[in-house]
């Protein structure tokens, strides 16, 4: 049965009532209205649902709510907005690094985790960090360039 749980999301504690064994993505999307994380496969294979939990890129579609505890969750919404985008989001806009855009949440969140660990990654580092994220439109070249651009502007 649903239980009241507190999740720390984008710097704020948020109460949700969900079944403990349900996956985090449904709490984020349906209970909290956070649409950055996207349902792609439900199997942890494509990366569209990626969020950052305690600094690591995590697949929210296979992460039960009961396993989160007090961990800090960051979603795409926690980075920036259209009016005030995060440097990564800005770089994706500058490089026009999206087509349908459905996978882009995962690309940006995986890149966020990468750049937090490795502020100046090589092109191979970027490709390796994103190798588990699928893009069907074929925007890969621009995605790599956007992450390189964001990294080059980092302190």
């Amino acid at each position, binding site marked *: 049965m649903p239980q009241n749980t507190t999740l720390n999301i984008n710097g704020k504690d948020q109460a949700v009532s969900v079944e403990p064994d349900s996956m985090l993505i449904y709490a984020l999307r349906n209970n909290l209205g956070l649409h950055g994380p996207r349902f792609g496969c439900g199997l942890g294979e494509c990366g569209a649902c990626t969020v950052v939990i305690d600094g690591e890129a995590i697949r929210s579609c296979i992460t039960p709510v009961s396993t989160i505890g007090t961990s800090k969750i960051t*979603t795409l919404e926690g980075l920036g907005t*259209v009016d005030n985008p995060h440097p990564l989001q800005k770089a994706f806009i500058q490089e026009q690094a*999206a087509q349908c855009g459905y996978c882009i949440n995962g690309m940006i969140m995986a890149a966020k985790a990468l750049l937090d660990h490795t502020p100046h990654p090589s092109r191979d580092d970027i490709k390796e960090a994103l*190798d588990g994220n699928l893009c069907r439109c*074929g925007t*890969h070249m621009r995605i790599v360039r956007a992450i390189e651009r964001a990294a080059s502007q980092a302190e």
Partner: protein
Amino acid sequence: MKQNESGIGGAQLNRRGFLQASGGLVVAFSLFNATEIAVAEPAAGRSVASPPAGKLYAWLAVHPDNTATLFTGKVETGNGVLTALAQIAAEELDLPIDRLDVVMGTTSQTVDQGPSYGSMTVRYAGPQIRQAAAAGRQVLIDLAAKHFGVSSNQLVAREGTITILGSSDRSITYGKLVDGKRLDVDIGASGERFAMKVAPEARTKDPSTYTVVGKSVKRKDIPGKVTGEFTYVQDVKVDGMLHGRVVRPYGVESRLLSVDENGLKDIPGFVQVVRRENFLGVVAETEWGAIQAAEKLGSTLNPSGPDDGQAKWSNWNGLSPMDQIWDTLRQTAGINRSVASTGSVDIALASQSGGQVLKATYKTPFQMHGSIGPSCAIADVKSDRATLWSGTQMPHETRGDIAKILGIPLDDVELRWFEASGGYGRNGLDHSVADAAIMSQEVGRPVRVQWMRWDEHGWEPKGPPIVQDLLGIVDKDGNAIAWRHHMWVPTITDTHLIAPALIGKPDVTGITGTGATPVIRYVYTFDNTDVAVHDEGRVGLLTAWLRSPAQFETTFAMESFIDEMAVAAGQDPLAFRLAHIDDPRAIAVLKAAAEKYGWVSRPAGGKKLQGAGKPVQGRGIAWVNRDDVRVATIADVTVDPASGQIKVGRVVVAHDCGLVVNPDGLRNQVEGNVIQSLSRTLHEEVTFDRAHVTSRDWEGYPILRFSDIPDSIDVVLVNNTPQYPSYGAGEPATNPTAAVISNAVFDAVGVRLRQTPFRPERVKAAMG
């Protein structure tokens, strides 16, 4: 162009009121900031019919804040057409593009301009919108003339403001002129969909004066998409909405024998099972509840058999064995059609002596659209009307299909369009609308259906497998004298929906094949030619259009076999092509690609392997004429003989789609086409057993990853001048890729790959 008696009158509405009145939506319809979706019940008796194409308000609204909205029946599928169409309209309207929003697809607000497929949106809807916007500009000028009491030719429109020439202090904005009224002006329209002519008398600008068309305007949708503020169809919430999941048959044509509902009521939020004939679904208050319930009934990644879940299916094993699919399709009923016939290949065969007769068979498998987001739709079906929310590429057609399935008059059905994950053709989106409609009709509440990954992989319509036999003759002097290309192509236009078939009404909507879709453009000038297609048959799985339908595959065979001919003739593959083409635009793209690449003439390949296991480089070239667009592609590959792995290095594409509306948007499309088609060339094959598709997730249907991307993709634009119309660029650059890679592999290691995908084990096997 005359104004109605009501002028541009009617109730004074602000922008929000306008949208409410016209669409019943309480939606902040900003492209940059689509936020809260709260959907009001349609007002009782409110018409949800599409607006008349001959009225200006069907295309354009001008708001008091001096912004405007363009309405189009075309939809965005990730190609950037929203921005391209906005550029065309903003250009003619003399309105800054950031003041122009675009409403797409919603059937009560837009004119049916035909589906958004086949690279035909900018090509056909572009001129319609250009004319409507030009008519709009003229109406605004006329209003200003009346306002100032001067003649129209004393006025100039710029950036949303009309000024009296020579008196810069006397000006008025579009917003003030229109004053919140509906643009109830007759602009005239005739014909339908792609062939529709809109506002034929409106005077459009001279293309040489364009300031918005031809610029790399940043796409309007991208900021919302990279921040999570964008609203995809998967994000739409409707008051009182339930969550549904489908439970598909185990075998493609299995019958539903029984459903054991034991334990379903223990699932929190579970509402009910929906069962009609072989259609099975579940609905629940929560998405998680629906997923749990569907799983109990048998909706899982790898069901072990037709009675694995609590729903029991008949044992159906009617699919062809996978390795025999190409033999099966040769025997499939269909239509024989001659594409090109000159001279006589048979006489050439009988009379030639001392030359070389080449024969080859090319095979390509079922492939899938593979949208990253699974299909999703919401339906709210009442006894006498229905509202649908969908990301379909053909909203007006799907509205009609659902009306037929439900038995509700068309004028009482509305489809509200929101973008979905990229589709690349006819995927599961339309099918999910039918699923949602049937479930909503059954439960009497709005139902949101989202397919699980295995529903999408297993049941989306596939691109068909194709087999092609080729024969060529090179005479003893090295001249190519004959060419035969026979192809067996199952239908790429089956629009039957899954759900109606499952409820026992398979033919209430949909057609199988129209015979109208060209699957090849034969372009060479050999003396003796026999090119023929056997197509429009059905082969086991539902098949429909997949990016550059069938021409990706036929170009693979044609452009690889041309290379085989060039090798037999001992000629450079570029020179050989140029010697047998007389199309100037084809010659132009081939030369442009070669120049950019730095092509040095030499016969292709068959290089001896230098030392065991050492990777070898090769280059390949191929081109296509896809629906009047010419594309030539050259790529470098490195083949690792030890592993059989192909690594793509530099790619050069020369692209002629006529006048380019947005150069960076076009480059984005070309890059996307190259990478997606590389994925299809190197990795993709739908697997199946005798009962169903077994490629049910990304493990079972691997696609290209970042580790496989080329080193670079250079794009050269050819004939980007107003001398040519804008032909459309959504898919042509897909076509040459498989041939380019096959040709490059031959150049590298001397083996000819004639069956996709070129996975390492296949490449290694070919090398012996």
